[in-house]
């Protein structure tokens, strides 16, 4: 093994991370190579030299600042739990409200089927029932019902007499005053 390879392996050698044969190779090389011996020593000395960089004390104000920030953190924690739950409830309530409003509006907007459509959609009209209930129908319903009866040929379509014919009939009925 050359010096470069040996020097790359020296940190692992110092860590005790090499296998038996690698350790043997390095130790044999160190016995005969001054440069690698120097490097081996330099590695250890440099690592030990780092100890000169001592720890520094923490500023006292920093500790006080941390402790003073704790209550707000606890509030924020609860807010983090409560707010999403409240928001979810509002959303669910809002959606429910919206759907129920849309449903009622749809029902109000639904067109009332015209009598003609009714007859087309409901061909099986109970004629007896219709006739029996004629007396309780309102005017419009009455005429609508009459139309229905005409359509189903229950009532004959009677042409309205013209005005002239009506007058003639009247005049023939007139009794001359004596």
């Amino acid at each position, binding site marked *: 093994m050359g010096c470069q390879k040996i020097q790359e392996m020296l940190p692992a050698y110092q860590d005790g991370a090499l296998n038996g044969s690698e350790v043997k190779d390095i130790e044999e090389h160190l016995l005969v190579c001054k440069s690698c011996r120097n490097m081996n020593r330099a590695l250890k*000395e440099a690592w030990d030299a780092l100890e*000169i960089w001592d720890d520094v004390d923490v500023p006292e104000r920093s500790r006080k600042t941390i*402790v003073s920030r*704790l209550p707000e953190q606890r509030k924020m924690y609860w807010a983090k739990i409560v707010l999403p739950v409240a928001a979810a409830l509002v959303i669910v309530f809002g959606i429910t409200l919206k759907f129920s409003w849309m449903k009622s509006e749809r029902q109000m907007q639904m067109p009332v089927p015209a009598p003609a459509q009714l007859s087309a959609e409901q061909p099986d009209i109970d004629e007896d029932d219709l006739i029996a209930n004629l007396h309780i129908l309102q005017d419009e319903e009455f005429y609508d019902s009459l139309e229905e009866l005409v359509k189903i040929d229950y009532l004959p379509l009677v042409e309205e007499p013209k005005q002239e014919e009506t007058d003639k009939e009247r005049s023939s009925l007139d009794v001359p005053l004596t």
Partner: protein
Amino acid sequence: MEETDIALMALIKEGEVKAFELLLSRHQKSVYNLALRFLGDPDDAEDIMQNTFIRVYKASQTYTPEAKFTTWLYTIVKNLCFNVLRSRRSAEIISMDSEYLPELPARTEDPIERISRSQVRETVIRAVNNLPENMKMAVILSKYHDLQYDEIAAIMGCTVNAVKLRVHRAKIILAKELKGISRET
């Protein structure tokens, strides 16, 4: 009997501020010094220490001990440190790492020895600060926090072999940078 860090976390969850203060006392110095050595700026180190412990406090509600407490704690510090580096880079602020030199503790040394020691310290700090970021973090955790390679790997989110490689390469770089310097101390 002294409460373990994990037991203290359980007490903090119950709202025990005293438990939090005890945890803070136990770890504030190591957290502060990790950030200070890595970033080289006392203000940034102070911010990171505060944010780390606020996160610890908030996380106490959901904390589940899956690893050593310090592994989890240092992972928070490491992440915050790298965030600061990223924001520094995006703001194009050149870190003047070598400008920060902690004050020497009072020692009974003669002036010549003190000057020499101060120069050695400056050289050591500069050499560590010149290491690539991941290498520097691995060296700091290994040298100043006595962490094993597997713990460092967990903190840094890499393999144990990657940590070994970083530390070994860093040792070679430092040996070249600090050649002969330790004999002056």
